[in-house]
């Protein structure tokens, strides 16, 4: 619901009457229909019986005793810090590094024979793995791409519009595709060691995975969590009453999950599921001195939560990028930003401001596009590593808003 008005206004120029007289011919439809009726009767005599597949979904209640492995009902042992492992610094000394001074952009390599058009759809906390997709046949025939330290490999995910959404520092990625072209049913997938396998759950979407390989997303349009990519999904708690819809968008290393929920015609609201399953609404951002009309939480890392909020005042919709810090309960707005796509362990974000930026504390570091001279905004950052040295996303190849290509930024 959150973007309804903006979406309707955005698409408004397309509202036009079809020009010219209709060429539709009812008599032709009857003639063709008569022919097809005969064909249909022959075929349907040997038609296969429909097979109904029941979704196997365990319903998770908070009352369940804390017998499962953490983070779902117990104390969570500290995790090895993937960024520390990668850089060789001990995780105990988890001090905030100095923010980078500048960032340089370069294109990510494409598989041989693939056209340039490509996008980034996720990255791991160390900056080693980046996932995305290409369009080898043009149009909408998508192919999954995985970059490991800048070296590209491809994978094929069954179904239409395949996408890997997130990846761990060990290269395990999750995503979704449409598996039934008529019914708009999604399936969740896990990528590991070059192989993509389907995750349990009907009409499932996998949106994020943490280092413990806990996966979150949705099943049947409601927030869900998988204890592992092979587990049956567990439905997350929703507020009292029926009809809640939404999804879990991201999961922290301690098992804290953030996402969004709405019901009926209500606006989306950001929610938080504690590691023990307790549901909480995230504090509502204030904009122009008024409570936001709608707000969402889309990313979480080390207790930092990044999201999106809007305030409708008359015909104007104000947008902002809220950031919550769970340990302190603080909520601030990332100045000059309207879209934040990722947050790292220090609360640094990649944001779309007047231009694309890496925002580290008070410092705004420009993420350059491939054509600096061109004024059109055509740079989208999508991931940021824990050390702030690597970000990834896409930039227009021609600088004029044309085909996007996958890029990586090195910041120091």
């Amino acid at each position, binding site marked *: 619901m959150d973007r309804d008005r903006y979406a309707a206004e955005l698409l408004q120029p397309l509202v036009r009457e079809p020009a010219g007289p209709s060429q539709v011919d009812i008599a032709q439809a009857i003639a063709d229909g008569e022919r097809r009726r005969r064909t249909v009767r022959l075929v349907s005599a040997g038609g296969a019986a429909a097979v109904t597949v029941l979704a196997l979904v365990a319903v998770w209640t908070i009352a369940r005793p804390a017998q499962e492995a953490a983070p779902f009902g117990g104390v969570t042992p500290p995790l090895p810090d993937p960024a520390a492992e990668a850089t060789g610094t001990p995780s105990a000394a988890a001090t905030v590094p100095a923010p980078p001074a500048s960032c340089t952009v370069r294109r990510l390599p494409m598989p041989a024979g693939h056209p340039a058009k490509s996008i980034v759809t996720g990255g791991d906390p160390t900056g080693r793995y980046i996932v995305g997709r290409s369009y080898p046949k043009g149009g909408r025939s998508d192919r999954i791409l995985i970059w490991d330290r800048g070296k590209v490999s491809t994978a094929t995910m069954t179904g239409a519009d395949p996408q890997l959404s997130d990846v761990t520092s060990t290269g395990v990625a999750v995503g979704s595709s449409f598996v039934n072209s008529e*019914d*708009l049913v999604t399936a969740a997938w896990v990528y590991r060691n070059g192989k993509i396998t389907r995750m349990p759950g009907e*009409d499932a979407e996998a949106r994020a995975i943490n280092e413990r390989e806990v996966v979150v997303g949705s099943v049947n349009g409601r927030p869900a969590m998988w204890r592992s990519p092979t587990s049956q999904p567990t439905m997350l708690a929703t507020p009292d009453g029926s009809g809640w819809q*939404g999804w879990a968008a991201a999961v922290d290393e301690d098992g804290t999950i953030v996402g969004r929920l709405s019901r009926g015609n209500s606006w989306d609201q950001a929610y938080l599921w504690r590691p023990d399953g307790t549901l909480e609404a995230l504090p509502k951002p204030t904009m122009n001195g008024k409570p936001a009309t709608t707000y969402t939480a889309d990313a979480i890392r080390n207790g930092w939560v990044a999201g999106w909020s809007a305030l409708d005042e008359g015909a104007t919709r104000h947008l902002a990028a809220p950031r919550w810090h769970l340990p302190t309960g603080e909520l601030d707005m990332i100045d000059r930003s309207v879209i934040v796509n990722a947050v790292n362990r220090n609360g640094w974000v990649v944001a779309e401001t007047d231009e694309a930026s890496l925002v580290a504390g008070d410092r705004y570091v420009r993420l350059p596009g491939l054509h600096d001279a061109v004024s059109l905004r055509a740079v*989208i950052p999508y991931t940021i590593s824990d050390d702030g040295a690597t970000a990834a996303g896409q930039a227009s190849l021609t600088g004029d*808003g044309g085909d996007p290509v996958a890029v990586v930024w090195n910041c120091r």
Partner: protein
Amino acid sequence: MRAEERQEYVEYVSGRLATLRQVAYLLCGDEHRADDLVQQTITKLYVRWRQVSHVEHLDQYVRRMLVRTFLDERRRPWSRVGLLAALPERPSPADHRVEDAMVLRAALAQVPRRQQAVLVLRYLCDMSIEDVAEALSCSAGTVKSQANRGLATLRRLLDAEAVSALREGN
């Protein structure tokens, strides 16, 4: 089919052609393809007329057939042809509006087809989430997530002016 059934069919379809054509046009952005979508849809409807003519929500049923025909169109070799090609030929009194529409239509054409259908039905045809879900045989949650995904993709594809307009809430 008996003559009176056929007459019912002709009456029903005649009364719905304009609406169906409008929805088909919004879905695909091209008059010729819109006509083709409607032609295919009413042919399928004729084949099933005896079974469906008395269903309670016939309009919704036919709209769903139309949307599915649109979704299935991706398999046809010519499905990617002509979105932009058809637009500039059309004379228009308001050039910048045509330009806006062209940019938007080109961007929309790059959005995955199911998301296109969700965006068009929800925001251009002004259908409720429940009606879109019904038309696409999916959950309301899927409609919402696809609308969000589709909008995010559109946003990425659109140029600076469109984006700044959205930011200012225009």
